[in-house]
């Protein structure tokens, strides 16, 4: 439990150190619903908070965390790359990829790799705030303990779940 929290604290420390470079830092927050395309299926619901550092007019990199509800509640920690592919319009399109790891803290499950490439659009609400919509493909692996007991034995095995889903995100970017 301690190490992921330390990593998250470190991330926000690094981010706040960089925040002195005003105008290059953005914070994004979004919620995500997924349509599972794997078996066993599980419809994920997620909330993410991401810090982004603008490297150029089009490219931003950052990291984020949040909470993801699958069969188990996961705490994702991921790197994020966002690239704006069109000139600023009413809707400005971008591609994004988040990759990291979803942590699970109970003793009957393990988290796993998290990847979510997506394509989206953002609409500037004002100089400092933009609304985003994106569509992506999410992969989240996790492992959980299964048990069954009867009068003859108790059975246990580790079930590896490889969840894939089409993800729909809506969020806000604070510049």
């Amino acid at each position, binding site marked *: 439990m301690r190490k992921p929290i330390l990593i998250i604290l470190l991330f926000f420390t690094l981010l706040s150190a960089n925040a002195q470079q005003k105008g290059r830092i953005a914070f994004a927050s979004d919620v995500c619903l997924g349509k599972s395309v794997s078996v066993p299926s599980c419809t994920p619901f997620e909330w993410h908070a991401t810090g982004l550092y603008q490297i150029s007019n089009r490219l931003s990199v950052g990291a984020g965390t949040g909470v993801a509800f699958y069969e188990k509640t996961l705490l994702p920690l991921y790197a994020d790359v966002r690239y704006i592919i069109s000139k600023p319009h009413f809707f400005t399109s971008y591609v994004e990829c988040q990759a990291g790891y979803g942590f699970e803290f109970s003793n009957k499950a393990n988290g796993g790799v998290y990847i979510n490439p997506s394509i989206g659009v953002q609409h500037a609400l004002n100089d400092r705030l933009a609304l985003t919509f994106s569509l992506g493909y999410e992969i989240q692996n996790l492992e959980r*303990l299964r048990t069954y007991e009867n009068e003859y034995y108790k059975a246990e*095995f580790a079930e590896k779940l490889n969840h894939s889903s089409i993800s729909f995100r809506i969020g806000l970017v604070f510049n």
Partner: protein
Amino acid sequence: MMTFIILSFMGFFSCQDNLVDYESGDVKVCIQQGDEWLHDFPLFLGLKKKNPPQIAVWIEDTDGNYISTVYATYKIATESWQMNGGNRRKEALPCWCYSRGVRYSDGLYLPTKDQPLTDGMTGATPHGSFNVKLTPTDKLKKFVVKVEINHSTDFNDSYPKSAKEGDANYSGGKDGSGQPAVVYAADVDLTSGKKSFEAKLIGHSSPDGTSGKLFTDMSGLTTALNIVKHITVNIQ
């Protein structure tokens, strides 16, 4: 930044716990994948995906009476087939289905979406070797561990896609099994002092899934014989 990356990786790997712990006397059923564990399943436009096999592990007494299912893959346990064209896939694991002996409303011995197998017995199909732990009670001393394994669309010359319903080698049509399920068994005696019991291939199941009969003539089977490499039952 490098420190952050290194710490991240340390964090990732230190958070992986071993979910199943073994103690003295526990029974470990080890299924080791063979060369044909993953099988090409046709999707569309010539695209294929690598599918792992359907598996059931169950226990019988030494007289062949069914005791209980230990493990069954999620798709057959919950009728969650994908792209099966409406086929309930009774040919998938018929030996296990008939041993279990639970007949459902449509006359088949397969669990349904509405009446799936008990949740704790089912798991996502493993993409490689895997183990099941059993902690036996005093009621379980001598028993047989049976494992039935099958790929869908695993056609060969002896079990072709073109076989017609009623033919001896009919296996459910174009979305069916192809080669029938193979069945392994290990006779386990916890009082013997032996620490390892090797499961032997004892036959194949009914190709079309219309009975739970075991067939010992394996001459028509090819790749199905290499789905697993070894199945062993180890006493800890």
